[in-house]
């Protein structure tokens, strides 16, 4: 009896754990709204759907060695990974996956991406690093009037319209001296307006624009929802008059300004308009800082006014490494090439006590003050920054300095409608499969069949919970594997029931027959499941993407089916036996 109680407790606990694992929860994620990226909280069931089920894009990038071998490939890929990840973050895709695959591949998964060409361009382009001196001439302050005028004119229109990417030709106004044409064109990639630049690099025409409308059309439902909320926020803004002058607060150094996140979201699309850049005095540009800054519960963004001509570009950077020093604190030490060192020497000598912005892909990573003329070796002191921060900066600098050319080795895109369709059909197939199995089991085994069906219900619950618990991704083959496993899941029950029947044939008592049935069926169940699990493991280790998802589902199903058939159904029997004292016959 006690035994039965503890069994029931275990089952109850498993059910609770499963429900907890499957309970919808609030997730914080970055989403793209009206062309800008905001942090949003969303309720969702913790079962990740693969790209083939929700629509999106899968990219495999590989190191392009066609233009010469890369010496330290592993290291190079590691650095490329950081750049790609940063850029993907900029795309504002929710739950992106960027990981290394094999020794020279990077795997990128972008759920719900509606402009694959742009995503691809952003991911593929070489990172671009510039050192620019911050503006000392109050250029921004002098231009505020003009900027406010532009804002007053454009903000209402922007709010009413959709993605700010429609902002027209932006083109990096900063074609850096000495940089190659290719990297010059990359300038605008990361800011949303840079889309245009990205498109230019892939050399495209009107046909592309037409196609983009089509792509937007397929996801219209979801987009319009976002759009509505975006329009709402825009409508709530009191006035657009003096938008810039109101928002901008002076920062700690020359040319550095601070804005609240809300103002950033509002003004960010504006900044890339050609009018805005034109409003600035010649030779000056505005750039956003890469990081947010939290102070007193408020989130701030930094905005920099910079001399548009970079004093040096990442081409000349040969190395960057973090260092820790008792007197200096954490620093990043960098080495420049000989030519770069010469240039840097003269430029930094002219700009002592000025602030130098480290700009990666048009975002200001940091803006330290120049303390002395720097030759080929320099260091950036991070003040109170942690060693981790130094490491990150070093990685970013190196990544910017040594871009590994990447080539797209594989792309898979699935439209959202196909994904939804696949899910619906998969669920339909699953329901039918369950019905078929239920009918067969109950028709054949009667009461025991009902117990098995009860076990099957728990099997479905446990399997899904296991998948959620391991954060597995449900793919289309995975869904098929799950449906198939429903048919296979009852095999253990069938084996046990047949054994019980055999035992009953030798006119054993019901209780003994059940005990013996379970005992005799066990080796066959274990052996057959273990061998299936072995194939699933092989599939997992050699498979990619969808096939892996299939293997995971298969494994979760095997585990769940053994638990339900051996433990849960046994408990059901024990429960039944405890109710009916010394039953004469068993319906099986």
């Amino acid at each position: 009896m006690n035994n039965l109680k503890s069994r029931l407790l275990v089952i109850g606990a498993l059910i609770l754990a499963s429900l907890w694992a499957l309970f919808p929860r609030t997730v914080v994620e970055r989403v793209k709204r009206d062309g800008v990226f905001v942090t949003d909280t969303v309720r969702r069931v913790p079962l990740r759907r693969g790209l083939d089920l929700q629509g999106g894009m899968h990219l495999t990038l590989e190191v392009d060695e066609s233009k010469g071998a890369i010496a330290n490939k592993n290291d190079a890929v590691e650095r490329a990974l950081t750049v790609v990840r940063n850029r993907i973050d900029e795309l504002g895709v929710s739950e992106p996956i960027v990981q290394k695959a094999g020794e020279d591949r990077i795997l990128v998964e972008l759920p719900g991406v509606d402009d694959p060409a742009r995503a691809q361009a952003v991911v593929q382009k070489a990172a671009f690093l510039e050192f620019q001196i911050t503006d000392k001439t109050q250029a921004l302050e002098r231009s505020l009037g003009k900027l406010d005028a532009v804002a007053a004119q454009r903000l209402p229109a922007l709010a009413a319209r959709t993605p700010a990417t429609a902002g027209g030709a932006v083109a990096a106004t900063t074609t850096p001296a000495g940089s190659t044409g290719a990297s010059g064109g990359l300038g605008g990639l990361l800011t949303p307006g840079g889309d245009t630049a990205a498109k230019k690099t892939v050399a495209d025409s009107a046909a592309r624009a037409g196609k983009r409308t089509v792509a937007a059309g397929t996801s219209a439902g979801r987009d319009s929802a976002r759009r509505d909320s975006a329009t709402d926020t825009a409508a709530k803004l009191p006035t657009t008059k003096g938008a810039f002058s109101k928002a901008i607060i002076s920062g700690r150094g020359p040319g550095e300004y601070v804005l609240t996140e809300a103002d950033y979201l509002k003004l960010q699309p504006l900044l890339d308009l050609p009018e805005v850049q034109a409003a600035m005095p010649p030779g000056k540009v505005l750039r956003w800082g890469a990081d947010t800054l939290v102070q007193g519960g408020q989130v701030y963004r930094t905005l920099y006014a910079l001399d548009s001509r970079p004093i040096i570009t990442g081409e000349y950077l040969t190395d960057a490494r973090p260092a820790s020093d008792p007197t200096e604190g954490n620093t990043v030490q960098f080495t420049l090439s000989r030519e770069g060192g010469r240039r840097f020497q003269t430029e930094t000598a002219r700009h002592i006590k000025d602030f130098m912005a480290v700009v990666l892909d048009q975002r200001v990573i940091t803006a330290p003050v120049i303390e002395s003329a720097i030759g080929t070796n320099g260091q950036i002191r991070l003040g109170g920054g942690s060693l981790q921060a130094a490491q990150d900066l070093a990685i970013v600098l190196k990544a910017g300095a040594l871009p590994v050319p990447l080539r797209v080795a594989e792309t898979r895109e699935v439209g959202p409608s196909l994904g939804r369709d696949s899910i619906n059909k998969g669920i339909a197939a699953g329901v039918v499969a369950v019905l078929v199995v239920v009918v067969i089991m109950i028709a054949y085994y009667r009461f025991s069949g009902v117990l098995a069906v009860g076990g099957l219900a728990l099997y479905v619950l446990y399997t899904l919970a296991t998948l959620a618990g391991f954060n597995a991704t449900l793919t289309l083959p995975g869904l098929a594997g799950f449906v198939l496993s429903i048919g296979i899941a009852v095999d253990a029950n069938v084996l046990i029931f047949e054994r019980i029947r055999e035992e009953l044939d030798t006119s054993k008592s019901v209780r003994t027959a059940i005990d013996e049935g379970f005992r005799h069926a066990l080796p066959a169940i274990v052996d057959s499941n273990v061998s299936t699990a072995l194939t699933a493991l092989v599939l997992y280790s050699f498979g990619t993407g969808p096939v892996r998802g299939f293997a995971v589902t298969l494994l979760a199903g095997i585990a769940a089916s053994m638990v339900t058939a051996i433990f849960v159904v046994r408990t059901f029997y024990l429960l039944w036996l405890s109710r009916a004292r010394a039953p004469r016959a068993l319906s099986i």
Partner: protein
Amino acid sequence: MLRIFHDTHYDFIKWWRAMAIATATFIIVGMGATLLRGGLRYSIDFTGGTLMQLAFQQKPDVAQLRAALDAGGVRDAEITQFGSDREFTVRAQDENASAGASTHGAESVARRVRDVLAQRFGASAFTVVRTEAVGPRVGSELRRGAIIAILVSFALTLIYLWFRFEWRFGLAAVIATAHDIFTTIAFIGLMHLEVSLTVIAAILTVIGYSLNDTIIIFDRVRENLRKHRGMPLYDLVNLSVNETLPRSVLTHATTLGATLALLLFAGEVIRPFAWVMAFGIFTGTFSSIYVASAILIWIERRYPRPAVDARRAPAARPAVRPDRTLAAS
């Protein structure tokens, strides 16, 4: 109590010769037909290339479609209707693939197809539902990966069964599994199914399923070896197959039910998978009896087990056993 195939005494193994001829014929015919057609149809997962699934607003003229693609420089594209009559897949090889230098790699063909069709039919006339583009190197790696996966799963099975049973069981099971792979490939060739990653997953599932079935029977054989000492293996295997028959029938019924549900309701993309699985249920069952069991008996004749019983029996046993062995022979 509803019972089917209860307490049967069919002499299954008797037919092994006929079955061997039948299955060999099937494999030869299937493989022959596949070869005549120019080999298996591999998906772009393995060959590299581009596949696009397009959904048109209105039923397009396939000839026009082809003409537009040809004119747009997408040559030798394979256009197939997929699902409804408004949906098509376009499959094309990347001509520059061998050069490998194109920065945009595998994606460029997809872009060209899109642009060409947008020009010809208008951008709103169709939507691209799915695009897959695989570079040649990835393709060849995936192909190698699939073969390695199958071989490794063989090795693991052999080791596991050796450990749990005996080498002869393991060997018989692996040969039966190899047989399943050949029949499945023949089936894929006959059905003209496209071999994709999903189909490889299906083949591996078939392997798992077939093994499952074989192991259930072998487990019974192992048990009966202990229970009916001295019974000739031929009879013993027959007995075991008969005893497990009700289970086989029922499990195959439920699995086939689930597979048919997939085949009928899960949509076009999963259909090849479901076909292979459906076939796999039959070949898996067949091979458990006519390949695995038959080979087990064959191995037994060739290499009689020295003293199966002695191996498992306590050391004291042999002293009593001689007369028993005599009686049995």
